[in-house]
């Protein structure tokens, strides 16, 4: 067990990503849109590939733009399938993300000779290489790991997003009709949230991979939701979980020599199932004689 600057950087970055994802995830959870978040994180793939192809680099603005556009497109497509074609919601999500993901893989194979983009790297990334991947300015100044900067910028963006739009986000999450009635553009807020989700997915996919972003979007908020129902404690608990997950995930992965991002998710899963065991409504016989109030809220 060691603690050096590399370990600190990885844990710090992991925690930043986990907290940013968690904050967005809380609102997705409250809107019952967790699977939409999942769908977006798959659906950005073609955008990433096209952006990559156009700019020739994984780190360009084009990649982020492409992914953002595809994220919004997938939200709109899910909505259109549901409202215009009257397909039930779960099927609309399933059809949308599989189609876009398939197109993404086809594009990767199509451009395989021209771009060095690995489908595995997009899907499950690798945070362990973060300390090597430095941001060096043209004058040779070493500014530290690039991904940490990216995660930091993303973190402050999302912090700002939730802080300034807090009222709008919470009202639209709890009562969409009321929010429309008092003049909040609920559709616009929704689209803004979805674009933040796609932006987070794309800025994190290098480090934790597209699919594991979903875990960080969904699992910590769900875990926190088992313990509390109020919004502010929910956000606080999610952030705490994010930090814990980053620390434990790093050391466990270090210990068995495996994927750090994967281990972060496994730790998140352990917290989740543990909380479900503690807070779940057990049948009367198993609940024992604890003084906790019987669950009226099932």
């Amino acid at each position, binding site marked *: 067990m060691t603690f050096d600057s590399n370990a600190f950087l990885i844990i710090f970055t992991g925690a930043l990503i986990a907290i940013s994802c968690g904050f967005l995830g809380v609102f997705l*959870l409250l809107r*019952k*849109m*967790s*699977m939409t978040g*999942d769908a977006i994180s*798959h659906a950005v793939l073609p955008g990433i590939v096209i952006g990559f192809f156009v700019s020739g680099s994984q780190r360009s603005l084009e990649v982020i733009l492409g992914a953002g556009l595809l994220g919004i497109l997938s939200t709109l497509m899910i909505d259109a*399938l549901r409202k*215009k*074609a*009257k*397909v*039930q919601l*779960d*099927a609309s*999500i*399933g*059809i949308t993300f*599989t*189609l876009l*993901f*398939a*197109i993404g*893989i*086809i594009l990767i*194979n*199509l451009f*395989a000779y021209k771009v060095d983009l690995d*489908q*595995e790297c997009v*899907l*499950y990334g690798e945070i362990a290489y973060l300390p090597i991947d430095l941001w060096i300015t043209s004058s040779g100044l070493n500014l530290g790991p690039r991904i940490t900067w990216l995660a930091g910028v993303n973190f402050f963006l999302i912090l700002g997003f939730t802080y300034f739009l807090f009222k709008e986000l919470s009202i639209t999450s709890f009562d969409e009709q009321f929010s429309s009635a008092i003049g909040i553009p609920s559709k616009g807020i929704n689209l803004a949230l979805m674009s933040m989700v796609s932006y987070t997915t794309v800025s994190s996919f290098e480090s934790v991979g597209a*699919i*594991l972003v*979903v*875990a960080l979007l*969904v*699992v910590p*908020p*769900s875990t926190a*939701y*088992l313990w509390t129902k109020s919004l502010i404690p929910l956000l606080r608990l999610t952030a705490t979980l994010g930090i814990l997950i980053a620390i434990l995930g790093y050391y466990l992965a270090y210990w*068995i*020599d*495996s*994927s750090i*991002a*994967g*281990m*972060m*998710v*496994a730790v998140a*899963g352990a917290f*989740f*199932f543990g909380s*479900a065991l503690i*807070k*779940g*409504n057990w049948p009367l016989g198993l609940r024992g004689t604890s003084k906790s109030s019987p669950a009226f809220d*099932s």
Partner: protein
Amino acid sequence: MEDFLYFFTFQDPSITWVVLGIMLLGIGSAYVGTFSFLDKKALLGDAISHAVLPGICLGFVLAGEKDPRYIVTGAFLSGALATFLSSWLKQHTKLSEDSITASILSVFFGIGIVALTAIQKSGNPEVAGLNSFIFGNAIGIAEADLFLYGGLSMAILLVLSLFLKEFRLMVFDPGFGKAIGFPMKGIRFVFNVLLILAVVIGIQAIGVVLMAALLITPGAAARFWTDRLQPLLLLAAFFSILSGILGTYVSFVLPQMPTGPWVVVFLSLIALLSFIFSPKSGIIRRFLARRNYLRKTHKDHLMKALFKAKEAHKERLTLEEIHALYPFHKKEITHSLQELTTQGLVLQDSQGIRLSTQGNSDAMRIVRLHRLWELYLNESMNIAPDHVHESAEQMEHLLTPELEAQLEQRLNYPTLDPHQETIPRDTP
């Protein structure tokens, strides 16, 4: 063209095998998926397909090589655990279904990635093949494995066809099934087993992420063409086979192209075409129906306005007067006016607009329906006279001649409506 003939005459046994394999997998998952689509649990299949990854790794570690029996068993077990956990969480926590599905999916996949990375770092040379589970490799299915997968697929089809009635009950009315004595829990258990099996064998060909498409899309597309279960299943299977063959063909002609994603693209294409063009409930069909209905209501309103003017002994109305009556529908009124004039129901001259003889009788009918319905609501439903107008405003466009006759008979050919206005009739 040569490629086309070569492919579709199935001269090459390896093509035959691949196509056969894709078809068997496709039919099996289309059948199971259609049921879970109707059950509104379409994304459970997606969760299961991500959740089998840890099991695949476990099977690999235990066997030490890519032995399909170990891998299928391992995958099945972790899929079963995921299914069990998601139904347990649904029953015992306050979490909503979609956050449970998303959590299970990502946690299991994360654990799978941990296991996969650990195995890869162990340096086993066989490990390269494991990645094919994530992205699928239809061409890579060996002939020997095909018998295992094909056999399982046939078994799924057989069970689903034998117990069609039971599964139909599970999907459409489990409460009724329970009441007449069917073991609904057992039936759901068997269905979950089939679903997991279908996912486990499908993943070989199409991969973890795209498996959901094989389950959801055929059923969703077929649903737009029929309301009956058996044609629905057959149609879903047909869509699945068709896109399976097309996908294999593309990857045969362009060898660098993967099969699975192309199958999904063709499936989605079929689905999108169905959503748009289906004559039953497609987007175009519903758009036209709505437009025609709106046009009819605007025409009806225009004729009603002219008729009421006539009742007030005013033979003609000017365009401005009509516009003043419907200030928000000026464009539509102009359009209806043109249509009614060409139909000969409305006459226009320099002094204004008036109804023709035929138009007068049509307009009279609309007003009659409106007032009959008001009277019916007032007399038979005991609704106060000042509350009946809104409903009548809608029903006047919808009542059929048969219903009109019934209303007349039931109300005994009344002369006055609740607002003491005459119910107009053609004098014979």
